[in-house]
């Protein structure tokens, strides 16, 4: 069994060149949106806007400007987090979503039937339907490349090494060193998803951030969808029981009324 593999993305060195986005599209033969006619977002230099079935990488531009000379850009190449406890995998009813030998999470397109449960289950909004296949799609962490000993297309293309690929243990150690280095320089940096005891058992694609998680479009405490299962089911069973009892009490009352009205005899049609 190979080591758990994944990405460490150091957002402080991302320059927003989108080489990763392009490399991903090329390698995975993902179609253009809208026949190649790109609609501009109109309020940001980020025109991809989101991850979906045909954008498995998305370089998020966070434009923090108070005035023309007072501000900064934050850039982050977003991707599936290959969660150690993955919500998408948990709910998928066809078994299309699997955990691979590299501890990554992959959707098998020939098994998926497009029910879309995984889209709502992912806490990060990673998955969407690819209109060409009619199935749910997302980053595979280049499973096909990993199988033959190649690194994923995006990290290979990244010119600043903002996206680093490797074994999770090694990446975590490297990431911690980088946080220490930045802190020594007075930058308030922290890691997101690097803690195996943290939310979702850690993320196999984790990040170094210099602002609040939410600013990067990342939930502070992502959770599994099944957290609601037990309570939701028991409330439903309880309401079914209440309705059942009400129905039976109603029938009993009707019978009592009949008996009263008929001087103690059972009235109406006899018991069935």
């Amino acid at each position, binding site marked *: 069994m190979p080591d758990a593999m994944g990405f460490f993305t150091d957002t402080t060195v991302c320059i927003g060149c989108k080489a990763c986005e392009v490399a991903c599209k090329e390698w995975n033969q993902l179609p253009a949106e809208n026949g190649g006619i790109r609609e501009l977002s109109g309020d940001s230099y980020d025109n991809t806007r989101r991850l979906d079935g045909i954008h498995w990488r998305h370089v998020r531009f966070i434009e923090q400007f108070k005035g023309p000379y007072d501000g900064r850009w934050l850039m982050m190449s977003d991707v599936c987090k290959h969660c150690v406890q993955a919500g998408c995998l948990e709910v998928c009813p066809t*078994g299309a979503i699997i955990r691979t030998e590299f501890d990554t999470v992959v959707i098998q397109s*020939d098994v998926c039937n497009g029910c879309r449960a995984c889209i709502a289950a992912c806490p990060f909004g990673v998955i969407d339907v690819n209109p060409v296949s009619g199935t749910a799609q997302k980053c595979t962490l280049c499973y096909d490349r990993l199988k033959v000993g190649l690194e994923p297309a995006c990290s290979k293309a990244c010119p600043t090494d903002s996206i680093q690929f490797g074994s999770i243990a090694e990446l975590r150690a490297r990431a911690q060193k980088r946080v220490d280095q930045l802190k020594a320089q007075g930058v308030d940096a922290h890691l997101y998803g690097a803690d195996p005891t943290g939310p979702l058992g850690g993320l196999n694609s984790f990040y170094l951030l210099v602002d609040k998680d939410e600013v*990067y479009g990342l939930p502070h405490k*992502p*959770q599994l969808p099944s957290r609601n299962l037990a309570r939701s089911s028991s409330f439903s069973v309880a309401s079914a029981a209440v309705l*059942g009892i*009400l129905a039976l009490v109603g029938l009993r009352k009707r019978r009592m009324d009949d008996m009263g009205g008929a001087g103690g005899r059972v009235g109406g049609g006899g018991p069935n």
Partner: protein
Amino acid sequence: MSDTFFSGAPHWTWFIILYFFVGGIAGGACFLAAILDWFGRTEDRPVVRTGYYVAAWGAILCGLLLTVDLGQPLRFWHMLVQSHNFPTIMFKAWSPISFGAWVVLSFGAFSVLSALGVMAEEGRIASPALRAMHRGALGKLVAGISALLGFSLAGYTGILLSVTNRPIWADSPWLGALFLASGASTGAATLILLAPGRGATERSLAWLSSFDTQALVVELLILVAFIVSLGSVNRVWLSSWGWGLVLLVGVVGLGILAPLRLHARRQPVANAARLVLLGGFLLRLATMFASEGIERYRVAAGM
């Protein structure tokens, strides 16, 4: 702000809304039919028969709606059998959508059996053996199982929404109970409207209408618990002109309070029943679109 605001919408829209609505009616009608089958009287048989027909046709319609909504409809069976490991069963008890696929299938099978029994009872199928079985212990057992599956169908649809990471749906554990109660009230309403055509007596209808009243009260209480349990997230819903209005005016006003008033005044039950059906539909509509319409990231990040 809730962490659910970072997820993506699954595009569960019209087919799924209809599926949830029809599934609730079929499940509720089946439950009421089975209760009357077990504990009612001969005079209740028209309601029982109507209930099993509604359940069977509803289950078939549910299966169709669920299938056409898939991105790859011809692969619907991948939810039941492992496509790469034929014929091993595909079932995940902890995944409501997997559980639900099996519920729809088995509810369909059992309710169709009951409906066939009803056809024998009505003489539409000339089979004394089937008729005897249907009116005997076996028929009652089938009815009991259908009723349990029917309630599972009505309720799991809400649990399915809660077991996600979507805003509103996953922010409360009450949706399953709410859809179940709505299934009971809309099931009763459907029987009130359809059973007279099969010769239902006034007394059966009176019982249905009094049950409907109680189911509506239960539904209202659960709806309040649901909205309260959403905490600050409910503002996102209630303050929106569109779906907030549909919930407050359509579901609570027209779909619950108005029929309760009609029932209390003993006014024609059919009018109340129509309003209950409208409310049940709007409940699914507002619940689905209120969350479907929320764009990821932007709300929470204030971007």
